[in-house]
Protein backbone atom coordinates (compact mmCIF):
# COMPACT_ATOMS: atom_id res chain seq x y z
CA UNK A 1 0.00 0.00 0.00
CA UNK A 2 1.92 2.96 -1.18
CA UNK A 3 1.45 6.37 0.23
CA UNK A 4 1.10 8.98 -2.40
CA UNK A 5 3.42 11.93 -2.60
CA UNK A 6 3.67 14.21 -5.54
CA UNK A 7 2.36 12.79 -8.77
CA UNK A 8 5.82 12.82 -10.32
CA UNK A 9 8.90 10.62 -9.67
CA UNK A 10 9.30 8.80 -6.29
CA UNK A 11 11.63 10.65 -3.89
CA UNK A 12 15.29 9.74 -3.70
CA UNK A 13 16.46 7.28 -1.08
CA UNK A 14 17.91 9.92 1.18
CA UNK A 15 14.76 11.97 1.21
CA UNK A 16 12.76 8.84 1.85
CA UNK A 17 14.87 7.94 4.83
CA UNK A 18 14.68 11.45 6.18
CA UNK A 19 10.95 11.57 5.78
CA UNK A 20 10.56 8.31 7.61
CA UNK A 21 13.45 8.80 9.97
CA UNK A 22 11.30 7.82 12.90
CA UNK A 23 10.88 4.37 11.41
CA UNK A 24 14.54 3.95 10.60
CA UNK A 25 15.52 5.10 14.03
CA UNK A 26 13.35 2.42 15.52
CA UNK A 27 15.29 -0.14 13.59
CA UNK A 28 18.60 0.81 15.13
CA UNK A 29 18.63 -1.24 18.35
CA UNK A 30 17.54 -4.42 16.62
CA UNK A 31 19.87 -4.03 13.67
CA UNK A 32 22.79 -3.11 15.90
CA UNK A 33 22.11 -6.18 17.99
CA UNK A 34 22.05 -8.43 14.94
CA UNK A 35 25.23 -6.94 13.55
CA UNK A 36 27.21 -7.22 16.75
CA UNK A 37 26.05 -10.53 18.13
CA UNK A 38 25.03 -12.47 15.08
CA UNK A 39 26.65 -11.11 11.99
CA UNK A 40 30.09 -10.21 13.18
CA UNK A 41 30.83 -13.52 14.90
CA UNK A 42 29.65 -15.29 11.76
CA UNK A 43 32.72 -14.03 10.02
CA UNK A 44 34.48 -16.32 12.43
CA UNK A 45 32.94 -19.20 10.53
CA UNK A 46 35.82 -18.80 8.21
CA UNK A 47 37.61 -21.09 10.62
CA UNK A 48 35.96 -23.85 8.66
CA UNK A 49 38.45 -23.05 5.97
CA UNK A 50 41.43 -22.95 8.21
CA UNK A 51 43.35 -25.36 10.34
CA UNK A 52 42.23 -23.15 13.14
CA UNK A 53 44.93 -22.75 15.73
CA UNK A 54 43.34 -20.55 18.33
CA UNK A 55 46.67 -19.70 19.87
CA UNK A 56 48.15 -18.44 16.70
CA UNK A 57 44.96 -16.51 16.45
CA UNK A 58 42.62 -16.08 13.61
CA UNK A 59 44.85 -14.28 11.16
CA UNK A 60 47.87 -16.48 11.54
CA UNK A 61 46.31 -19.91 11.28
CA UNK A 62 47.13 -21.66 8.06
CA UNK A 63 44.63 -21.79 5.28
CA UNK A 64 43.77 -25.31 4.25
CA UNK A 65 40.98 -24.49 1.90
CA UNK A 66 38.40 -27.16 1.64
CA UNK A 67 40.12 -29.93 3.62
CA UNK A 68 37.42 -30.31 6.22
CA UNK A 69 34.69 -30.26 3.67
CA UNK A 70 36.47 -33.07 1.89
CA UNK A 71 36.69 -35.23 5.01
CA UNK A 72 33.01 -34.78 5.49
CA UNK A 73 31.99 -35.43 1.91
CA UNK A 74 34.13 -38.52 1.55
CA UNK A 75 32.72 -40.29 4.58
CA UNK A 76 31.45 -43.51 3.00
CA UNK A 77 28.08 -43.07 4.63
CA UNK A 78 27.72 -39.43 3.77
CA UNK A 79 24.64 -40.00 1.64
CA UNK A 80 23.13 -41.92 4.50
CA UNK A 81 23.64 -38.99 6.86
CA UNK A 82 22.00 -36.70 4.38
CA UNK A 83 19.15 -39.06 3.73
CA UNK A 84 18.42 -39.65 7.40
CA UNK A 85 18.50 -35.95 8.08
CA UNK A 86 16.15 -35.13 5.23
CA UNK A 87 13.73 -37.96 5.92
CA UNK A 88 13.40 -37.21 9.60
CA UNK A 89 12.98 -33.54 8.75
CA UNK A 90 10.25 -34.42 6.31
CA UNK A 91 8.46 -36.55 8.89
CA UNK A 92 8.64 -33.65 11.31
CA UNK A 93 7.14 -31.35 8.70
CA UNK A 94 4.36 -33.79 7.99
CA UNK A 95 3.48 -34.68 11.56
CA UNK A 96 5.08 -32.47 14.16
CA UNK A 97 4.14 -29.27 12.40
CA UNK A 98 0.42 -29.89 11.97
CA UNK A 99 -0.02 -31.42 15.42
CA UNK A 100 0.10 -28.16 17.41
CA UNK A 101 -2.07 -26.50 14.79
CA UNK A 102 -4.73 -29.14 15.04
CA UNK A 103 -4.50 -29.01 18.79
CA UNK A 104 -5.01 -25.26 18.82
CA UNK A 105 -8.01 -25.54 16.57
CA UNK A 106 -9.54 -28.30 18.69
CA UNK A 107 -8.95 -26.32 21.85
CA UNK A 108 -10.54 -23.35 20.23
CA UNK A 109 -13.71 -25.34 19.61
CA UNK A 110 -14.17 -26.23 23.24
CA UNK A 111 -17.12 -24.56 24.90
CA UNK A 112 -16.24 -25.07 28.51
CA UNK A 113 -13.68 -22.43 29.37
CA UNK A 114 -12.43 -24.11 32.52
CA UNK A 115 -11.80 -27.39 30.73
CA UNK A 116 -10.11 -25.56 27.89
CA UNK A 117 -7.77 -23.75 30.22
CA UNK A 118 -6.79 -26.82 32.22
CA UNK A 119 -6.19 -28.93 29.14
CA UNK A 120 -3.98 -26.23 27.73
CA UNK A 121 -1.93 -25.94 30.89
CA UNK A 122 -1.41 -29.67 31.18
CA UNK A 123 -0.40 -30.11 27.59
CA UNK A 124 2.47 -27.65 27.57
CA UNK A 125 4.18 -29.16 30.62
CA UNK A 126 6.41 -31.66 28.79
CA UNK A 127 8.11 -28.78 27.04
CA UNK A 128 10.07 -28.20 30.23
CA UNK A 129 11.43 -31.68 30.53
CA UNK A 130 14.95 -32.18 29.28
CA UNK A 131 15.64 -34.79 26.62
CA UNK A 132 17.66 -36.72 29.14
CA UNK A 133 14.60 -37.20 31.27
CA UNK A 134 12.42 -37.92 28.28
CA UNK A 135 14.95 -40.51 27.18
CA UNK A 136 14.59 -42.07 30.60
CA UNK A 137 10.82 -42.05 30.29
CA UNK A 138 11.11 -43.59 26.83
CA UNK A 139 13.26 -46.30 28.31
CA UNK A 140 10.65 -46.98 30.98
CA UNK A 141 8.06 -47.48 28.29
CA UNK A 142 10.03 -49.31 25.66
CA UNK A 143 12.68 -51.38 27.38
CA UNK A 144 12.48 -55.06 26.47
CA UNK A 145 13.31 -55.99 30.05
CA UNK A 146 11.12 -53.73 32.15
CA UNK A 147 9.26 -51.48 29.76
CA UNK A 148 5.54 -51.00 30.20
CA UNK A 149 4.73 -51.58 26.55
CA UNK A 150 6.63 -54.84 26.45
CA UNK A 151 5.09 -55.99 29.68
CA UNK A 152 1.70 -55.51 28.10
CA UNK A 153 2.88 -57.34 25.00
CA UNK A 154 4.16 -60.35 26.91
CA UNK A 155 1.02 -60.48 29.00
CA UNK A 156 -1.03 -60.78 25.84
CA UNK A 157 1.18 -63.58 24.62
CA UNK A 158 3.71 -61.85 22.39
CA UNK A 159 7.47 -61.69 22.70
CA UNK A 160 9.20 -58.46 23.68
CA UNK A 161 10.15 -56.01 20.96
CA UNK A 162 13.43 -54.20 21.24
CA UNK A 163 12.03 -50.84 20.23
CA UNK A 164 15.12 -48.85 21.02
CA UNK A 165 17.32 -51.19 19.06
CA UNK A 166 15.36 -51.66 15.85
CA UNK A 167 16.27 -49.19 13.12
CA UNK A 168 12.68 -49.31 11.90
CA UNK A 169 11.30 -47.83 15.10
CA UNK A 170 13.79 -45.06 15.46
CA UNK A 171 12.18 -42.44 13.28
CA UNK A 172 8.67 -42.96 14.64
CA UNK A 173 10.05 -42.68 18.16
CA UNK A 174 11.69 -39.39 17.29
CA UNK A 175 8.56 -37.97 15.72
CA UNK A 176 6.22 -39.17 18.46
CA UNK A 177 8.45 -37.88 21.22
CA UNK A 178 8.72 -34.53 19.46
CA UNK A 179 4.98 -34.27 19.28
CA UNK A 180 4.53 -35.34 22.86
CA UNK A 181 7.03 -32.84 24.14
CA UNK A 182 6.24 -29.73 22.18
CA UNK A 183 2.75 -30.02 20.82
CA UNK A 184 1.25 -28.14 23.73
CA UNK A 185 3.83 -25.39 23.81
CA UNK A 186 3.88 -24.87 20.08
CA UNK A 187 0.12 -24.58 20.07
CA UNK A 188 0.38 -21.38 22.05
CA UNK A 189 1.38 -19.33 19.06
CA UNK A 190 -1.58 -20.65 17.10
CA UNK A 191 -3.92 -19.93 19.97
CA UNK A 192 -2.70 -16.37 20.02
CA UNK A 193 -3.29 -16.14 16.31
CA UNK A 194 -6.79 -17.51 16.72
CA UNK A 195 -7.52 -14.96 19.38
CA UNK A 196 -6.62 -12.28 16.89
CA UNK A 197 -9.38 -13.17 14.49
CA UNK A 198 -12.20 -10.72 14.82
CA UNK A 199 -15.33 -12.29 16.30
CA UNK A 200 -17.52 -10.10 14.13
CA UNK A 201 -16.42 -12.23 11.20
CA UNK A 202 -17.78 -15.32 12.88
CA UNK A 203 -21.00 -13.61 13.79
CA UNK A 204 -21.55 -12.43 10.26
CA UNK A 205 -20.93 -15.94 8.99
CA UNK A 206 -23.36 -17.46 11.46
CA UNK A 207 -26.01 -15.05 10.36
CA UNK A 208 -25.41 -16.10 6.80
CA UNK A 209 -26.08 -19.66 7.90
CA UNK A 210 -22.54 -21.03 7.74
CA UNK A 211 -21.93 -24.16 9.83
CA UNK A 212 -18.85 -24.68 11.97
CA UNK A 213 -16.97 -26.45 9.25
CA UNK A 214 -17.54 -23.60 6.79
CA UNK A 215 -16.58 -21.08 9.41
CA UNK A 216 -13.37 -22.98 9.87
CA UNK A 217 -12.63 -23.15 6.19
CA UNK A 218 -13.37 -19.57 5.36
CA UNK A 219 -12.46 -17.64 8.46
CA UNK A 220 -10.22 -19.60 10.81
CA UNK A 221 -7.88 -21.07 8.26
CA UNK A 222 -7.25 -17.88 6.32
CA UNK A 223 -6.75 -16.08 9.60
CA UNK A 224 -4.11 -18.56 10.59
CA UNK A 225 -2.45 -18.66 7.22
CA UNK A 226 0.24 -16.01 7.81
CA UNK A 227 1.54 -17.75 10.93
CA UNK A 228 1.34 -21.18 9.37
CA UNK A 229 3.31 -20.11 6.35
CA UNK A 230 5.88 -18.30 8.46
CA UNK A 231 6.54 -21.35 10.57
CA UNK A 232 6.55 -23.64 7.57
CA UNK A 233 9.04 -21.50 5.70
CA UNK A 234 11.35 -21.28 8.69
CA UNK A 235 11.20 -25.02 9.16
CA UNK A 236 12.18 -25.43 5.54
CA UNK A 237 15.11 -23.12 6.08
CA UNK A 238 16.20 -25.33 8.95
CA UNK A 239 15.61 -28.55 7.09
CA UNK A 240 19.02 -30.00 7.91
CA UNK A 241 18.92 -28.79 11.49
CA UNK A 242 17.39 -31.45 13.66
CA UNK A 243 17.26 -31.39 17.43
CA UNK A 244 20.69 -32.81 18.21
CA UNK A 245 20.00 -33.54 21.87
CA UNK A 246 16.88 -35.47 21.06
CA UNK A 247 18.39 -37.63 18.37
CA UNK A 248 21.54 -38.28 20.33
CA UNK A 249 19.51 -39.40 23.30
CA UNK A 250 17.85 -42.20 21.37
CA UNK A 251 20.65 -43.03 18.96
CA UNK A 252 22.86 -46.07 19.32
CA UNK A 253 25.16 -47.89 16.86
CA UNK A 254 22.47 -50.28 15.67
CA UNK A 255 20.17 -47.45 14.72
CA UNK A 256 22.78 -45.41 12.85
CA UNK A 257 21.20 -46.82 9.71
CA UNK A 258 18.06 -44.77 10.07
CA UNK A 259 19.03 -42.30 12.71
CA UNK A 260 22.57 -41.03 12.32
CA UNK A 261 22.22 -37.47 11.11
CA UNK A 262 24.59 -34.65 10.28
CA UNK A 263 24.55 -33.25 13.80
CA UNK A 264 25.25 -36.52 15.59
CA UNK A 265 28.06 -37.34 13.17
CA UNK A 266 29.48 -33.88 13.64
CA UNK A 267 29.37 -34.27 17.41
CA UNK A 268 30.98 -37.69 17.42
CA UNK A 269 33.77 -37.04 14.93
CA UNK A 270 34.23 -33.36 15.65
CA UNK A 271 33.35 -31.99 19.03
CA UNK A 272 34.12 -35.11 21.03
CA UNK A 273 37.58 -35.15 19.49
CA UNK A 274 38.17 -31.47 20.06
CA UNK A 275 38.16 -30.73 16.35
CA UNK A 276 36.14 -27.57 15.80
CA UNK A 277 36.65 -27.06 12.11
CA UNK A 278 34.66 -30.10 11.08
CA UNK A 279 31.47 -29.07 12.89
CA UNK A 280 31.81 -25.58 11.51
CA UNK A 281 32.13 -26.91 7.98
CA UNK A 282 29.04 -29.03 8.50
CA UNK A 283 27.22 -26.05 9.93
CA UNK A 284 28.02 -24.03 6.86
CA UNK A 285 26.86 -26.80 4.59
CA UNK A 286 23.55 -27.03 6.46
CA UNK A 287 23.15 -23.30 6.30
CA UNK A 288 23.74 -23.00 2.60
CA UNK A 289 21.31 -25.76 1.72
CA UNK A 290 18.69 -24.41 4.10
CA UNK A 291 19.01 -20.88 2.86
CA UNK A 292 18.63 -21.82 -0.77
CA UNK A 293 15.59 -23.94 -0.02
CA UNK A 294 14.11 -21.10 1.98
CA UNK A 295 14.43 -18.63 -0.86
CA UNK A 296 12.83 -21.07 -3.26
CA UNK A 297 10.03 -21.89 -0.85
CA UNK A 298 9.44 -18.25 -0.16
CA UNK A 299 8.92 -17.54 -3.85
CA UNK A 300 6.57 -20.49 -4.16
CA UNK A 301 4.65 -19.41 -1.12
CA UNK A 302 4.23 -15.87 -2.36
CA UNK A 303 3.00 -17.13 -5.68
CA UNK A 304 0.44 -19.49 -4.22
CA UNK A 305 -0.69 -18.10 -0.90
CA UNK A 306 0.50 -14.56 -1.08
CA UNK A 307 2.40 -15.03 2.16
CA UNK A 308 6.14 -14.79 2.38
CA UNK A 309 8.93 -13.64 4.58
CA UNK A 310 10.31 -11.32 1.95
Amino acid at each position, binding site marked *: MKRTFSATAPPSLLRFVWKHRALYL*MLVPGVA*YLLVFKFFPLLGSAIAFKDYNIYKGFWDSDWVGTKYFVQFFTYPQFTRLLRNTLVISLYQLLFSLPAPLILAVLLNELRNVAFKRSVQTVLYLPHFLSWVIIGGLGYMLLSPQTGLVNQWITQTGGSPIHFLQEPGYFRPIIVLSSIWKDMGWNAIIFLAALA*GISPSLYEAAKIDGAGRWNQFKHITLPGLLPVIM*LILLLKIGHVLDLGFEQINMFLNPITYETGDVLDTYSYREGILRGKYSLPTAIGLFKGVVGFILLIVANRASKATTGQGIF
Partner: protein
Amino acid sequence: MEIRKSTGERIFDLANIIVLSLACLAVLLPIVHVFASSLSSTQALVHAKVSLWPVEFNLGNYAEIMHNDQFWRAFGVSTFVVVVGTLIALTVTVLMAYPLSKSYLRGRNAIMLMVVFTMIFYPPMIPLYLTVKSVGLMNTVWAMIIPAAMAQFNLLICLTFFRSLPEELYEAARMDGMSESRMVWRIAVPLSKPIMMTLGLFYAEFFWNNYSSSLLYVTKTAIRPLQLFMYYMIAKTDMNEMAGNITEHASTVSPQGLQMATIIIATIPIIIIYPFIQKHFIKGALVGSIKE
Protein backbone atom coordinates in the same frame (compact mmCIF):
# COMPACT_ATOMS: atom_id res chain seq x y z
CA MET B 1 -30.25 -15.84 18.03
CA GLU B 2 -29.24 -19.32 18.96
CA ILE B 3 -28.60 -21.72 16.13
CA ARG B 4 -29.19 -25.32 17.14
CA LYS B 5 -26.29 -27.65 16.84
CA SER B 6 -26.56 -30.40 14.31
CA THR B 7 -25.93 -33.99 15.33
CA GLY B 8 -22.69 -33.88 13.40
CA GLU B 9 -21.53 -30.99 15.49
CA ARG B 10 -22.55 -32.72 18.70
CA ILE B 11 -20.55 -35.80 17.80
CA PHE B 12 -17.64 -33.63 16.94
CA ASP B 13 -17.77 -31.86 20.27
CA LEU B 14 -17.87 -35.14 22.13
CA ALA B 15 -15.03 -36.61 20.12
CA ASN B 16 -13.06 -33.45 20.71
CA ILE B 17 -13.42 -33.75 24.44
CA ILE B 18 -12.44 -37.40 24.39
CA VAL B 19 -9.39 -36.86 22.22
CA LEU B 20 -8.16 -33.96 24.28
CA SER B 21 -8.72 -35.86 27.50
CA LEU B 22 -6.69 -38.77 26.21
CA ALA B 23 -3.93 -36.39 25.19
CA CYS B 24 -3.96 -34.94 28.68
CA LEU B 25 -3.64 -38.37 30.18
CA ALA B 26 -0.74 -39.23 27.90
CA VAL B 27 1.01 -36.12 29.11
CA LEU B 28 -0.02 -36.14 32.73
CA LEU B 29 0.98 -39.67 33.66
CA PRO B 30 4.68 -39.36 32.85
CA ILE B 31 4.83 -35.94 34.50
CA VAL B 32 3.25 -37.26 37.64
CA HIS B 33 5.86 -39.99 37.58
CA VAL B 34 8.63 -37.40 37.36
CA PHE B 35 7.12 -35.50 40.24
CA ALA B 36 6.73 -38.62 42.33
CA SER B 37 10.32 -39.64 41.62
CA SER B 38 11.60 -36.35 42.92
CA LEU B 39 9.90 -37.11 46.21
CA SER B 40 11.15 -40.66 46.57
CA SER B 41 14.14 -42.15 48.31
CA THR B 42 17.30 -43.21 46.50
CA GLN B 43 16.69 -46.90 47.10
CA ALA B 44 13.19 -46.62 45.69
CA LEU B 45 14.66 -45.15 42.52
CA VAL B 46 17.40 -47.76 42.32
CA HIS B 47 14.90 -50.57 42.50
CA ALA B 48 12.59 -48.76 40.06
CA LYS B 49 9.71 -48.97 42.46
CA VAL B 50 8.21 -45.58 41.73
CA SER B 51 5.25 -45.39 39.40
CA LEU B 52 2.72 -42.64 40.12
CA TRP B 53 3.12 -42.18 43.81
CA PRO B 54 6.24 -41.34 45.82
CA VAL B 55 7.86 -44.30 47.53
CA GLU B 56 9.49 -43.56 50.88
CA PHE B 57 8.33 -40.00 50.61
CA ASN B 58 10.88 -37.38 51.54
CA LEU B 59 11.77 -33.86 50.55
CA GLY B 60 15.48 -34.61 50.50
CA ASN B 61 16.09 -33.64 46.90
CA TYR B 62 14.29 -30.36 47.30
CA ALA B 63 15.99 -29.63 50.60
CA GLU B 64 19.36 -30.26 49.04
CA ILE B 65 18.65 -27.65 46.42
CA MET B 66 16.79 -25.07 48.44
CA HIS B 67 18.52 -25.15 51.84
CA ASN B 68 21.35 -23.35 50.29
CA ASP B 69 21.94 -19.60 50.40
CA GLN B 70 23.12 -19.80 46.88
CA PHE B 71 19.73 -21.05 45.81
CA TRP B 72 17.94 -17.89 46.83
CA ARG B 73 20.64 -15.74 45.41
CA ALA B 74 20.51 -17.61 42.11
CA PHE B 75 16.74 -17.31 42.19
CA GLY B 76 17.07 -13.58 42.57
CA VAL B 77 19.54 -13.36 39.73
CA SER B 78 17.25 -15.34 37.46
CA THR B 79 14.27 -13.19 38.37
CA PHE B 80 16.20 -10.08 37.52
CA VAL B 81 17.33 -11.53 34.23
CA VAL B 82 13.81 -12.61 33.34
CA VAL B 83 12.12 -9.32 34.17
CA VAL B 84 14.71 -7.00 32.71
CA GLY B 85 15.50 -9.30 29.83
CA THR B 86 11.88 -9.69 28.80
CA LEU B 87 11.28 -5.95 28.93
CA ILE B 88 14.34 -5.19 26.87
CA ALA B 89 13.70 -7.98 24.42
CA LEU B 90 10.06 -7.04 23.88
CA THR B 91 10.97 -3.42 23.34
CA VAL B 92 13.69 -4.17 20.82
CA THR B 93 11.46 -6.66 19.05
CA VAL B 94 8.48 -4.35 18.79
CA LEU B 95 10.61 -1.43 17.70
CA MET B 96 12.11 -3.47 14.94
CA ALA B 97 8.94 -5.24 13.86
CA TYR B 98 6.91 -2.10 13.44
CA PRO B 99 8.90 -0.44 10.64
CA LEU B 100 9.42 -3.77 8.95
CA SER B 101 5.70 -4.31 8.79
CA LYS B 102 5.32 -1.33 6.51
CA SER B 103 5.45 -2.60 2.98
CA TYR B 104 6.61 0.77 1.69
CA LEU B 105 9.75 0.84 3.76
CA ARG B 106 12.78 0.93 1.54
CA GLY B 107 15.53 -1.49 2.32
CA ARG B 108 13.05 -3.76 3.99
CA ASN B 109 13.98 -6.81 2.04
CA ALA B 110 17.66 -6.36 2.69
CA ILE B 111 17.05 -6.23 6.41
CA MET B 112 14.72 -9.23 6.28
CA LEU B 113 17.40 -11.10 4.44
CA MET B 114 19.86 -10.33 7.18
CA VAL B 115 17.42 -11.43 9.84
CA VAL B 116 16.77 -14.77 8.20
CA PHE B 117 20.40 -15.20 7.24
CA THR B 118 21.50 -14.92 10.85
CA MET B 119 18.83 -17.40 11.84
CA ILE B 120 20.13 -20.03 9.51
CA PHE B 121 23.83 -19.42 9.91
CA TYR B 122 24.50 -19.11 13.59
CA PRO B 123 27.78 -17.91 15.01
CA PRO B 124 30.22 -20.50 16.35
CA MET B 125 31.26 -20.56 19.99
CA ILE B 126 34.68 -19.00 19.98
CA PRO B 127 33.96 -15.92 17.86
CA LEU B 128 30.79 -15.31 19.84
CA TYR B 129 32.70 -15.57 23.08
CA LEU B 130 35.32 -13.14 21.85
CA THR B 131 32.60 -10.72 20.80
CA VAL B 132 30.85 -10.83 24.14
CA LYS B 133 34.15 -10.38 25.85
CA SER B 134 35.27 -7.45 23.74
CA VAL B 135 32.01 -5.64 24.43
CA GLY B 136 32.82 -5.90 28.10
CA LEU B 137 29.99 -8.14 29.21
CA MET B 138 31.99 -10.98 30.73
CA ASN B 139 30.90 -11.98 34.17
CA THR B 140 28.04 -9.53 34.43
CA VAL B 141 24.31 -10.13 34.57
CA TRP B 142 24.08 -8.35 31.26
CA ALA B 143 25.95 -11.21 29.61
CA MET B 144 22.80 -13.22 30.12
CA ILE B 145 20.57 -10.54 28.68
CA ILE B 146 22.17 -8.53 25.91
CA PRO B 147 23.44 -11.36 23.71
CA ALA B 148 19.87 -12.66 23.69
CA ALA B 149 18.20 -9.29 23.33
CA MET B 150 16.16 -10.37 20.36
CA ALA B 151 15.12 -13.70 18.96
CA GLN B 152 14.64 -13.50 15.22
CA PHE B 153 11.77 -15.94 15.31
CA ASN B 154 9.87 -13.73 17.74
CA LEU B 155 10.64 -10.75 15.56
CA LEU B 156 9.13 -12.48 12.56
CA ILE B 157 6.01 -13.46 14.49
CA CYS B 158 5.56 -9.92 15.74
CA LEU B 159 6.06 -8.57 12.30
CA THR B 160 3.57 -10.98 10.76
CA PHE B 161 0.93 -9.73 13.13
CA PHE B 162 1.70 -6.09 12.71
CA ARG B 163 1.36 -6.60 8.98
CA SER B 164 -2.18 -7.76 9.39
CA LEU B 165 -3.19 -4.48 10.97
CA PRO B 166 -4.72 -2.36 8.24
CA GLU B 167 -2.96 0.80 7.26
CA GLU B 168 -6.19 2.79 7.57
CA LEU B 169 -5.81 2.73 11.32
CA TYR B 170 -2.56 4.57 11.04
CA GLU B 171 -3.85 6.91 8.40
CA ALA B 172 -6.54 8.11 10.72
CA ALA B 173 -4.09 8.65 13.54
CA ARG B 174 -1.63 10.38 11.27
CA MET B 175 -4.25 12.84 10.21
CA ASP B 176 -4.83 13.57 13.85
CA GLY B 177 -1.15 14.45 14.10
CA MET B 178 0.05 11.40 16.00
CA SER B 179 3.77 10.70 15.64
CA GLU B 180 5.02 7.41 14.33
CA SER B 181 6.53 6.30 17.62
CA ARG B 182 3.31 7.06 19.45
CA MET B 183 1.49 4.86 16.99
CA VAL B 184 3.61 1.91 17.92
CA TRP B 185 2.60 2.03 21.53
CA ARG B 186 -0.90 3.40 21.15
CA ILE B 187 -2.12 1.40 18.20
CA ALA B 188 0.01 -1.52 17.13
CA VAL B 189 0.81 -2.98 20.53
CA PRO B 190 -2.60 -2.76 22.17
CA LEU B 191 -4.23 -4.35 19.17
CA SER B 192 -1.80 -7.23 19.25
CA LYS B 193 -2.30 -8.11 22.86
CA PRO B 194 -2.40 -11.87 22.41
CA ILE B 195 0.85 -11.76 20.48
CA MET B 196 2.51 -9.46 22.96
CA MET B 197 1.54 -11.80 25.75
CA THR B 198 2.81 -14.77 23.80
CA LEU B 199 6.12 -13.18 22.94
CA GLY B 200 6.48 -12.02 26.51
CA LEU B 201 5.91 -15.59 27.59
CA PHE B 202 8.42 -16.94 25.09
CA TYR B 203 11.09 -14.50 26.13
CA ALA B 204 10.41 -15.03 29.82
CA GLU B 205 10.63 -18.77 29.41
CA PHE B 206 13.83 -18.44 27.46
CA PHE B 207 15.53 -16.22 30.01
CA TRP B 208 14.35 -18.35 32.88
CA ASN B 209 15.50 -21.68 31.45
CA ASN B 210 18.58 -20.58 29.60
CA TYR B 211 21.91 -21.55 31.02
CA SER B 212 24.10 -21.84 27.97
CA SER B 213 24.94 -18.14 28.08
CA SER B 214 25.93 -18.28 31.70
CA LEU B 215 27.85 -21.51 31.26
CA LEU B 216 30.58 -19.80 29.33
CA TYR B 217 30.25 -16.17 30.24
CA VAL B 218 29.77 -16.28 33.99
CA THR B 219 32.35 -17.66 36.39
CA LYS B 220 31.47 -15.61 39.46
CA THR B 221 29.27 -17.75 41.64
CA ALA B 222 27.56 -14.65 42.94
CA ILE B 223 25.74 -14.05 39.68
CA ARG B 224 24.96 -17.58 38.74
CA PRO B 225 21.39 -17.96 37.55
CA LEU B 226 19.14 -20.66 38.92
CA GLN B 227 19.50 -23.16 36.09
CA LEU B 228 23.27 -22.99 36.24
CA PHE B 229 23.23 -23.41 39.98
CA MET B 230 21.09 -26.51 39.72
CA TYR B 231 23.20 -27.84 36.86
CA TYR B 232 26.32 -27.65 39.03
CA MET B 233 24.52 -29.19 41.94
CA ILE B 234 23.70 -32.23 39.86
CA ALA B 235 27.26 -32.41 38.56
CA LYS B 236 28.54 -32.28 42.12
CA THR B 237 26.34 -35.11 43.33
CA ASP B 238 27.34 -37.11 40.29
CA MET B 239 30.99 -36.52 40.99
CA ASN B 240 30.61 -37.51 44.59
CA GLU B 241 29.14 -40.79 43.49
CA MET B 242 31.89 -41.42 41.00
CA ALA B 243 34.62 -40.54 43.43
CA GLY B 244 33.33 -43.03 45.90
CA ASN B 245 32.39 -40.46 48.49
CA ILE B 246 29.49 -41.28 50.68
CA THR B 247 27.46 -38.21 51.43
CA GLU B 248 25.31 -38.01 54.51
CA HIS B 249 22.14 -37.59 52.53
CA ALA B 250 22.79 -40.41 50.11
CA SER B 251 19.62 -42.20 51.09
CA THR B 252 17.39 -39.30 50.16
CA VAL B 253 19.39 -37.41 47.58
CA SER B 254 20.37 -38.97 44.28
CA PRO B 255 21.46 -37.46 40.97
CA GLN B 256 18.31 -38.85 39.38
CA GLY B 257 16.05 -37.45 42.04
CA LEU B 258 17.84 -34.12 41.88
CA GLN B 259 17.38 -33.92 38.15
CA MET B 260 13.66 -34.42 38.52
CA ALA B 261 13.43 -31.93 41.35
CA THR B 262 15.26 -29.26 39.40
CA ILE B 263 12.80 -29.60 36.56
CA ILE B 264 9.84 -29.25 38.88
CA ILE B 265 11.33 -26.19 40.54
CA ALA B 266 12.09 -24.61 37.20
CA THR B 267 8.59 -25.21 35.90
CA ILE B 268 6.56 -23.94 38.82
CA PRO B 269 6.94 -20.20 38.17
CA ILE B 270 5.74 -20.63 34.62
CA ILE B 271 2.73 -22.61 35.76
CA ILE B 272 1.88 -19.81 38.14
CA ILE B 273 2.18 -17.04 35.58
CA TYR B 274 0.53 -18.76 32.67
CA PRO B 275 -3.11 -18.35 33.74
CA PHE B 276 -2.67 -14.59 33.62
CA ILE B 277 -1.62 -14.86 30.04
CA GLN B 278 -4.30 -17.32 29.13
CA LYS B 279 -6.92 -14.69 29.82
CA HIS B 280 -5.81 -12.90 26.70
CA PHE B 281 -6.27 -15.86 24.45
CA ILE B 282 -9.94 -15.20 24.21
CA LYS B 283 -11.49 -14.47 20.89
CA GLY B 284 -12.08 -10.84 20.34
CA ALA B 285 -8.96 -9.12 21.50
CA LEU B 286 -9.30 -6.98 18.43
CA VAL B 287 -12.19 -5.11 19.90
CA GLY B 288 -13.53 -1.99 18.40
CA SER B 289 -11.45 -1.94 15.30
CA ILE B 290 -12.50 -1.80 11.75
CA LYS B 291 -15.83 -2.84 10.37
CA GLU B 292 -15.70 -5.35 7.58
